[in-house]
């Protein structure tokens, strides 16, 4: 290994060969390297030559997604896989730095989790309050039971206004609803305005990450997509050139759009406000430029009061990107003079999930993506390998609520290391829910034969929660109790490129009790 690679290893880089020859990131007034928004803390660049971009899972109707097959293809593209792994691990480390800068971080997580638990268990009351406030603000409020209803409602609004084109900001809810495909079939031109989301739209691919939709693509892939769709120079892969090309080609579409739509990060019950958090300002363009304004809101996005934003805004971007706040935190409450504002409140399975004793707390999710960035499976297989709207650890516990058969294999795409739970800003017990889903799916015979074999072999530990909890309690990880072949089984493709970390013989808590506490339990 060259000296240069060795020095990168000392920087805590996982793949020292993934490096840029130059640093193109923006710098501040005094020349310091900036790393706000989703910027990498150091240049990370997939090496040339061009390597075809691995594509996502092969979705075949209602048949179970073969995540392992797609992961296999991702691993077979080492330039992509290493850059992806390095990039997301870098974001995870930025998150740690940001979290450690706040003494009350753990208290904030606990409060956020409690606010969400309270709101979700009183959702009918707060939704009524939100609706009344929004109506008093002059907003048209709509209710949609599912994704199809959401799409029909929005189409109806557009048709009443004779609107033919719509600019939108990133929204996982509209991905859930299949919004773009539905509108295309109905002759409405949909334009994504977030750079990452636009890249994905132009490449006819779903977003692979909730915050960084095109994080699985290298600059060469983007240059290829833009050359094909925007007519850019196929040999120019300069990130500034590519971003500017998107700005210049999207701006005219924003200016002439008939309608604009945004998603919603938080909906405030007491004021009827929709809050969006973006770095590009594209939600503000979508909401403030076209003459017709629509906001799509998942009903679980409600928080009771404005003061609660003081908790969630501090957690969201720090957890997502390690940035203290997004560049734009926007509060849409009422229509601009002479224009209409519509809010569509969407259920799409959320009220059913509320009744699932082991899984309802997954509704606390604020879509920061921290669990994805920290997940070794996600980083080595890419978001598209999950073949679902939500990927990574949160996807494993949300996706089966939409379709138990199609997403029956996903809860097995986990090493059960629990890191997702540790970084979750609203303290969802993600890894425990992953385990609980395995149990549910096994009981309902939704598990394919191969995975059933793994389950049997893992035996008592995997099928009895008490034994499992005892196991992770003792080792901080299920790794030590899983038979080696269950971790390195061919079904778990993502295990191939790495030895599993050696689980400590003694958990931290046990060590702490033994070494740092005196006999009466005081530290």
């Amino acid at each position, binding site marked *: 290994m060259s000296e240069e690679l060795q020095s990168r290893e000392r920087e805590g880089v996982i793949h020292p060969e993934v490096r840029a020859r130059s640093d*193109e*990131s*923006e710098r501040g007034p005094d020349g310091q390297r*900036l*790393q*706000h*928004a989703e*910027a*990498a803390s150091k240049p990370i660049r997939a090496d040339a030559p061009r390597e075809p971009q691995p594509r996502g899972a092969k979705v075949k109707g209602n048949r179970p997604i073969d995540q392992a097959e797609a992961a296999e293809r991702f691993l077979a593209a080492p330039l992509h896989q290493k850059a992806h792994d390095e990039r997301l691990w870098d974001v995870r480390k930025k998150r740690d730095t940001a979290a450690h800068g*706040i003494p*009350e971080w753990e208290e904030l997580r606990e*409060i956020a989790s*409690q*606010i969400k638990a*309270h709101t*979700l268990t*009183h*959702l*009918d009351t707060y*939704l*009524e309050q939100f609706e009344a406030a929004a109506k008093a603000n002059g907003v048209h409020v709509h209710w949609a*039971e599912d994704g199809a*209803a959401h799409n029909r409602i929005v189409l109806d609004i557009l048709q009443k206004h004779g609107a033919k084109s719509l600019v939108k900001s990133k929204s996982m809810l509209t991905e859930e609803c299949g919004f773009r495909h539905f509108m295309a079939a109905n002759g409405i031109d949909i334009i994504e*305005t977030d750079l*990452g989301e636009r890249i994905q739209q132009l490449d006819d691919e779903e977003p692979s990450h909730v915050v*960084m*939709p095109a994080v699985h693509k290298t*600059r060469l892939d983007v240059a290829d997509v833009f050359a094909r769709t925007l007519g850019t120079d196929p040999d120019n892969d300069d*990130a500034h050139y590519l*971003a*500017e090309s998107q700005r210049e080609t999207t701006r005219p579409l924003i*200016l*002439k759009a008939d309608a604009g739509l945004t998603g919603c990060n938080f909906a405030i019950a*007491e004021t009827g406000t929709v809050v969006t958090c973006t*770095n*590009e*300002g*594209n939600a503000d*363009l979508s909401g*403030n*430029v076209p*003459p017709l304004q629509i906001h799509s809101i998942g009903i679980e996005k409600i928080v009771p009061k*404005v*003061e609660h934003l*003081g908790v969630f*805004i501090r957690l969201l971007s720090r957890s997502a990107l390690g*940035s*203290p*706040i997004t*560049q*734009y*935190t926007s*509060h849409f*409450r*009422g229509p601009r003079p002479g224009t209409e504002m519509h809010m569509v409140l969407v*259920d799409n399975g959320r*009220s*059913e999930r*509320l*009744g699932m004793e082991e899984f309802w707390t997954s509704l606390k999710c604020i879509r920061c993506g921290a669990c994805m960035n920290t997940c070794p499976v996600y980083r080595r297989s890419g978001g598209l390998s999950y073949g679902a709207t939500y990927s990574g650890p949160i996807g494993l516990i949300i996706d089966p609520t939409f379709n138990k058969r199609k997403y029956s294999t996903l809860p097995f795409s986990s090493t059960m290391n629990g890191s997702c739970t540790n970084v979750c800003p609203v303290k969802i017990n993600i890894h425990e829910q992953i385990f609980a889903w395995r149990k549910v799916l096994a009981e309902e015979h939704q598990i394919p034969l191969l995975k059933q074999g793994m389950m049997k072999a893992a035996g008592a530990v995997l099928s009895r929660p008490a034994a499992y909890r005892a196991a992770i309690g003792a080792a901080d990880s299920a790794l030590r109790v899983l038979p080696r072949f269950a971790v390195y089984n061919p079904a778990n493709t993502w295990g191939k490129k790495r030895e599993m970390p050696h689980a400590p013989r003694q958990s931290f808590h046990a060590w702490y009790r033994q070494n740092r506490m005196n006999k009466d339990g005081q530290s």
Partner: protein
Amino acid sequence: MSAREAIFARLKANRPAGDYPLPAVPDFAPLVGDDLVAEFAERLARMGGRVERAGSPADPFAPVRSRLAGAAVIASAVPEFTGNRDLRAAQRPQDMADVDVAIVRARFGVAETGSVLFTQDDLIVNAVAYLAQHLIVLLDPADLLTNIQAAYRRPEFGRSAYAVLHTGPSATADIEGVLIHGAQGVRSLTVLLLQRKIQAA
């Protein structure tokens, strides 16, 4: 049954058992020192913005003179500067598409994050803060708050049709993590520290 009734019926039927009270949010100690201007300037610089102190009373805009001199179209929402694009005369937001520099005043700033707040009244045309190529923000140092918690105690959020916190310029790093300013919105954001002449209502 309407969609609304069906959703509410399921929410009531599926309400999880147990008592989940709304927690009180304590007042956390601000993570900034006493010099709010210095803290604000440092945090904003890290988010890609910059802070300038106003020039002499005769020429408060001196620090941003070069930016203004290079601009063909200037839209000003503040009485301290007369631009050449009248925001109040705008018929549609799209009229702001060719603005090079917009000058607006912030309601307040937040030292802990380097953010500034605008409402629809401060922007006159909301879209100008995104369609302009560059944004110059006037901020009275007396309007600096310590942290985001303090910001969310302000009344603007409960009564404005639109309220927005800007923290630096429009930014993206969607391509290989390379940070780029001017993704879709303004390419730069400069805060000019300048006292208010007239107190906001």
